[in-house]
């Protein structure tokens, strides 16, 4: 992304806070004018102090009371401006973060499958934070910086044109220095950002899977790998940090030059009687203050460049192409018949996977998919649920091509339990009612009884209100599966997809669940992937898959009599 594009985009977000923005601008102007006017007033006051017995106290007091007014007005407006600035930047980041999150709900599943979780998280969290910091600094310093420069020049010109000219002529030098440095630094900041991303990915992976690492006692190796990435990050960091930190001394030096020049010129004018000592004092105070905005602006520029890089990474998530959802809807109360015609699909378009898949299923029938691991069972589920779209051919529900209806209308009619369960951190109750927030306690308990989860939930320290942490916390995989099943039992839709839904549940429990499942499946169209064959045996259609292709199809009886791959699979479990 080009920085000009990023800035344009960011400005759009900021513009939501137009009123705060304008207020902050006005208040900063007031602050700047007040703080710039004080040296003039102080200079006037000093001119009233000529020497022994020669002090004009009356005029002095007037100047001093003006200073008092200026400092009160300046202080108050500065405080309020600060509040506004924080509001704008934190608000902007909040908005962007939310938009990124929202877009993540709309991107195709393939986007998330191909990104690293740690990377997305770091964009939405860490990059957004850095961006907010940069933005606050930008508001605080960029505004007031520019205002101060303009104001300083104005006041300097009113004091003495020649002194002002000295400052104006030397100004480009300061700009040149800061520009030169920030240009050099940007490269290093980018490098640092990339390396940071690498480190974060490693951290995310190794800390999330820490138990595996530890069970292999590979902490040392993992640490060594990390050190390698980390050392490089350290080197890039050093460069980025050092080069960006030259900016301040550089501009400060230029400022000292300006200061010396103003001192020289001012003193000569004072000797010639062109200006007073008070004027000289004010000019020097300005020359002194004059560095600060340049320091600030240049500091802000490096900071902002970093912030822009971060905003860019966040914007990439916001801008990730959302899935172009269709407007159509499935009819109400669908029956759940399926026609799958000539479907081709592959993840990697250069390698074919599923080709010419055909089958049809009447409403209320059950389809089982069997085959060795990696044969494409999960892929078919991805297609049926609309997680991925077919490359060619059609999948029709009740005669409607699912590619013409919205995913929501499709998925509302489908219930799914996957082998890899997912629970959110929250109470058991929240996890069961996921998708059915309005469910009553009775309904939840009833569903849990149907899935035979009730007995273990009851035994947890706080029952249904037990909080499960990240990734299901301390629950076993089997328990997590039971909760996923309960989730489905609570409000079963007309079409069910069960992908190894009970693979980690012990057989006694599974046996009991199967009875509930059977009841559930009655009258519903079902897709079942399972290794345990009870549910398969009674299916209306069995697809036997291998390497993405359907190698055999038929009912259990038909397939057995074929004496092919299926019967081999089936018999193997008795040996």
């Amino acid at each position, binding site marked *: 992304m080009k920085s000009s594009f990023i800035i344009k985009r960011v400005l759009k977000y900021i513009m939501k806070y137009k009123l705060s923005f304008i207020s902050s601008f006005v208040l900063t102007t007031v602050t700047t004018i007040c703080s710039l006017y004080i040296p003039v007033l*102080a200079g006037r006051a000093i001119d009233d*102090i*000529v020497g*022994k017995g020669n002090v004009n106290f009356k005029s*002095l007091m007037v100047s001093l009371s003006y*200073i008092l007014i200026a*400092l009160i007005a*300046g*202080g108050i407006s500065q405080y309020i401006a600060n509040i506004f600035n*924080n509001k704008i930047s*934190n608000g902007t980041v*909040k908005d962007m*973060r939310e938009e990124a999150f929202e877009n993540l*709900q709309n991107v195709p599943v393939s986007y998330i499958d191909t990104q*690293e979780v*740690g990377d997305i*998280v770091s964009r939405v969290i860490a990059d957004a934070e850095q961006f907010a910091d940069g933005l606050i*600094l930008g508001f605080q*310093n960029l505004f007031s910086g520019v205002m101060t420069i303009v104001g300083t020049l104005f006041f300097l010109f009113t004091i003495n044109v020649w002194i002002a000219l000295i400052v104006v002529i030397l100004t480009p030098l300061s700009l040149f220095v800061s520009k030169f440095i920030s240009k050099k630094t940007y490269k290093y900041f980018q490098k640092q950002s990339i390396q*940071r991303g690498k*480190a*974060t990915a490693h951290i995310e*992976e*190794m*800390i*999330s899977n820490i*138990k595996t690492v530890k069970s292999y006692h590979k902490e040392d190796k993992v640490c060594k790998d990390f050190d390698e990435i980390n050392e490089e990050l350290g080197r890039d*960091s050093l460069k980025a*940090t*050092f080069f960006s930190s030259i900016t301040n*001394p550089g501009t400060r*030096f230029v400022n*000292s030059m300006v200061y*010396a020049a103003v*001192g020289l010129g001012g*003193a000569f004018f004072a*000797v010639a009687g062109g200006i007073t*000592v008070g004027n000289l*004092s004010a000019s*020097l*105070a300005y020359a*002194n*203050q004059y560095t600060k905005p340049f320091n600030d602006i240049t500091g802000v520029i490096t900071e902002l460049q970093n912030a822009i890089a971060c905003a860019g990474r966040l914007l990439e998530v916001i801008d990730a192409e959302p899935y172009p959802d269709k407007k159509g809807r499935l009819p109400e109360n669908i029956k759940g018949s399926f026609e799958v015609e000539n479907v081709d699909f592959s993840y990697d378009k250069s390698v074919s996977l599923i080709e010419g898949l055909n089958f049809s299923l009447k409403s209320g029938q059950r389809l089982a998919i069997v085959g*060795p*691991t*990696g044969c494409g069972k999960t892929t078919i589920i991805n297609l049926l649920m609309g*997680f991925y779209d077919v490359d060619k051919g059609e999948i029709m529900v009740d005669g409607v091509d699912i590619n013409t209806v919205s995913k929501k209308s499709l*998925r509302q009619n489908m219930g799914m339990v996957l082998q890899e369960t*997912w629970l959110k951190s929250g109470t058991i109750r929240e996890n069961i009612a996921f*998708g059915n927030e309005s469910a009553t306690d009775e309904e939840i308990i009833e569903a849990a009884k149907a899935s035979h989860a009730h007995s*273990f939930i009851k035994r947890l320290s706080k029952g249904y209100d037990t909080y499960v942490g*990240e990734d299901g916390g301390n629950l076993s*995989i089997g328990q997590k599966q039971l909760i996923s099943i309960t989730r489905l039992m609570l409000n079963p839709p007309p079409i069910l997809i069960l992908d190894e839904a009970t693979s980690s*549940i012990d*057989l*006694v429990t*599974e*046996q009991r669940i199967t009875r509930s499942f059977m009841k559930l499946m009655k009258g519903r169209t079902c897709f079942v992937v399972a290794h345990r064959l009870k549910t398969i045996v009674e299916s209306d259609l069995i697809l036997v898959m291998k390497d993405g292709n359907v190698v055999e199809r038929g009912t259990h009886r038909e397939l057995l009599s074929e004496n092919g791959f299926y019967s081999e699979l089936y018999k*193997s*479990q008795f040996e």
Partner: protein
Amino acid sequence: MKSLSFLKSYKKEVILAPTFKLLEASFELFVPLVVKDIIDNGIRNSDKGYIIMRCLLLVLLAVVGLVSSITAQYFAARAATGAGTKLRSALFRKIQSLSFKQIDDTGSATLITRMTSDVNQIQTGINMFLRLLLRSPFIVVGAVIMAYYVDFKTAHIFTVVALLLSLIVFLVMFFTIPKYKLVQNQLDDVLLHTKENIKGVRVIRAFTQEENEVKAFKGENAKLLKLQKISNAISSIMNPATFVVINLGIIALIYAGAVRVDYGIITQGAVVALYNYMSQILVELIKLANLIITETKALACKNRVDAVLSMEEYKKPAGKDKITNHLVTFHNVSLSYNDNREYSLHNISFNVDKGETIGIIGGTGSGKTSLINLLCGFYEPTIGSVYIGDKNILNMSDKELDNSISLVMQRAVMFRGTIRENITFGKYNASDADIENAVAVSQSDVIVEKKSRGLEEFILEQGKNLSGGQKQRLSIARALVRNTPILILDDSFSALDYQTDKKLRKALEESSKDRTTFIISQRTSTIQNCNKILVLSEGELVGIGTHNELLENCSEYKDIYISCNREVS
């Protein structure tokens, strides 16, 4: 102070950076004196030569200031990035050394934030501290001292101003630090929500919960914003307050100066010098105020990182060894994960001899995985002892444990990297023959063969480009390649079809006669040929024996067996 201890190896930098900063600052402090001379001597006496000389002195001061300042920046950057890198490395190591219980208690989301954004903040904090935080107080104190040099009596105003400023800085920090902590914690929650949402994409979409997720996320975010607002409202006081105090100081100073000049005690030039010193303090303090915000944030981060660093090193208590004459012995073992005495395992005793294959079976939550956790030394028994050979497991070093046991976990985890790297994860220097053998036994050869780059095929984060069964088989290969005397398979066949399951078991049996294997399973068919089967139910060992024995005398086992068979018949 833990996280800052890494500055120790940068002593030179830590001393040199502020020293050069102070040098630069002292040159700056001379400037108002030079200006005073210009006014009182140069202008008053119309001595142009004197003025030129003094202005050249200003240029000289600037040049020396520039050189020392850049030197200081370099050392500061080195110390900060160096210490940051070391801290990151140490923290990572520390996290890797946490016990399973500590990891459960802390949660990985917060550990990740601490490793990333917190350490970054600390690094910035150190850098800024070395560069500016020492410079600013020095300029303030220096300006006060110089003021005393210029005029002792008026300089008292400087002391009052400096004290007031310190008070402001202190108060603001005192109130903001705890607020920043709250902000950081809330940020953790936002992070967790984001992470969960991405990981749960399929379930969320299947339940069409996208909108609710967004709503919940917005709620978390709104909470964050609210906390930020509070902490900002306090920290924003700093700048305006210092501005007000200093300008009040200027008013007092000019008035007092005027009185002193009127009495003829000091000159006009001296008042200008005093005024300049006050302005210098102002410029410095505005910088300082911004900095304090960075520093308070860094400090909050430091505390969070310190909390991890100071987590107690998990120390196994020593246990008594015992002559057992068995390879593995469980003696009256009970385990409770939390201290509320809810036992996940209760009074378990059994022993295993070399070369045996042990089946462990039982319902969900019966304690199978807990038993493995004990056998691998991940948790220590709450009561009783576990022995490997004659050695109490508590007395075994990580290395000894590592050399004796390989575990295949229930959830097959893959790392980013090639298949080869994943397989050799536990044995870096495995020979090609070892790898080949492990791949063949684990039935992973079909996976490897299908990949165009074979063993060098790249696996994505979390093994995204592999199916559940493929991951399980590769994780078995990872364990096999290590060739340890004990192999534990914790429900590692669950995603495999029966045929692969059977082939795998057969290959395992044939591959090594000496190996002692523990197989945890839900299916009796997987374990019925084992030498010994342990039947667990709600944490109790309810049966032990061979398949046939158990069918005779263990009703729980019989139930399981019947349900398995009913399923297939």
